[in-house]
């Protein structure tokens, strides 16, 4: 399992993540699988909160998403989720949409990288 030279490294600070999981590569794979499972649910919940113009729910969901991404050392996307959280706190709809658009752009590449990484290492 070559974690250090994958496309995933574009998104994930692999050294930091490996340190966090105490070099347990099996756990790391388990976490990525959890991400695959949970991320679409959170992303859909976030979009749905934005569509319903519910800034409190947007803030809350963006906060959870930010935490998940930070735990996986997906630093840039985590900062983008934080921007959505901050924008939601201001209640400014235009700022929320702008922050969401940036996050959406980033997440497409991230999801694809996680998918191909998992597919590549699975027997």
């Amino acid at each position: 399992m070559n974690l250090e030279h994958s496309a995933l490294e574009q998104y994930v600070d692999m050294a930091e993540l490996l340190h966090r999981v105490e070099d347990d590569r099996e756990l790391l794979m388990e976490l990525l699988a959890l991400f695959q499972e949970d991320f679409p649910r959170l992303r859909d919940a976030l979009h749905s909160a934005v569509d319903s113009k519910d800034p409190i729910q947007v803030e809350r969901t963006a906060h959870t998403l930010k935490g998940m991404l930070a735990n996986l050392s997906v630093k840039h996307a985590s900062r983008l989720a934080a921007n959505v959280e901050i924008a939601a706190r201001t209640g400014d709809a235009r700022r929320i949409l702008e922050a969401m658009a940036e996050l959406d752009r980033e997440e497409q590449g991230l999801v694809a990288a996680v998918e191909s990484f998992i597919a590549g290492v699975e027997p």
Partner: protein
Amino acid sequence: MKILIADDEEVSLRILQKILERNGYEVIAVRDGRKAAEHLCDPDGPRLALLDWVMPQLDGPSVCRTVRRKRSQRHVYLVLLTSKSAKEDIIEGLESGADEYLIKPFDPGELKARLRTGLRILELEDNLLEAREDMRYKATHDSLTALLNRGTILELLAAELNRERRDNHSIAIALGDLDHFKLVNDTYGHVVGDEVLAETGRRLLGSVRSYDFVGRYGGEEFLIVLNNCCSDTLMDRAEKIRTAICGSPFRTSQGPISVTVSLGILAGHPTDKRPLEEVLCEVDRALYAAKSAGRNRCCLAPSSQRNTPPET
């Protein structure tokens, strides 16, 4: 050591669970604040917790407040683990009752070190509580016989007399004195005398019910408070105490010794408003009468024969 982790975010929950289990913790993982509070408020629940801030049902600070309000027996070491990193969040989190505040994403080394700090504090509390309990026991018990000491048995007797008058139930008092105990000391020495006193304590405790009280009143005098004791059974119970002492010889380091006890018995009555001192004087007179009548017997105080306590 049990530890509770509460987080509605699966990745965080899984990393924490794995790291903590690897370090010997018994992990209870929940995904909302209400469940976390339920576990932590349970007197047998975990005493160490990692709480996320933003959670369904109840947020982390609310869990801290709930735990601090409801559970006071033993300290629960609460760590807020959150990505909220603003100064005002940290202050609010600690003010809510958290002992420690850690910011996500966490460093596993730091997390483990912070938890060890928590364990040290809990251990310190355990030691203090144990020392307090030890002191409480020593302050209320006689070290030789392990019975209640004079101060404590008198306090309990006063409380039971008040309760008898208030709740209209009946108690009885027995004052026992080992017969010819001085002879035991003079013949076998004080070490054997102490052995006899210790064995007397054990036999007295074995002859009463769990809700009766037995105390060492003086050198070889013992005061027994028999709760819920009606006149019909009073003398049978007193005889049971007497025969517990004389029923078989005491085994001592100097061989078996026959020991007997004389007992003054007083049946309490809810209408008896006499102060404690007078009640004790009367039971003491009954004890004296038992001695005068030849020892190794129970003698009922005169007021017990006049007042018939109600049946219970």
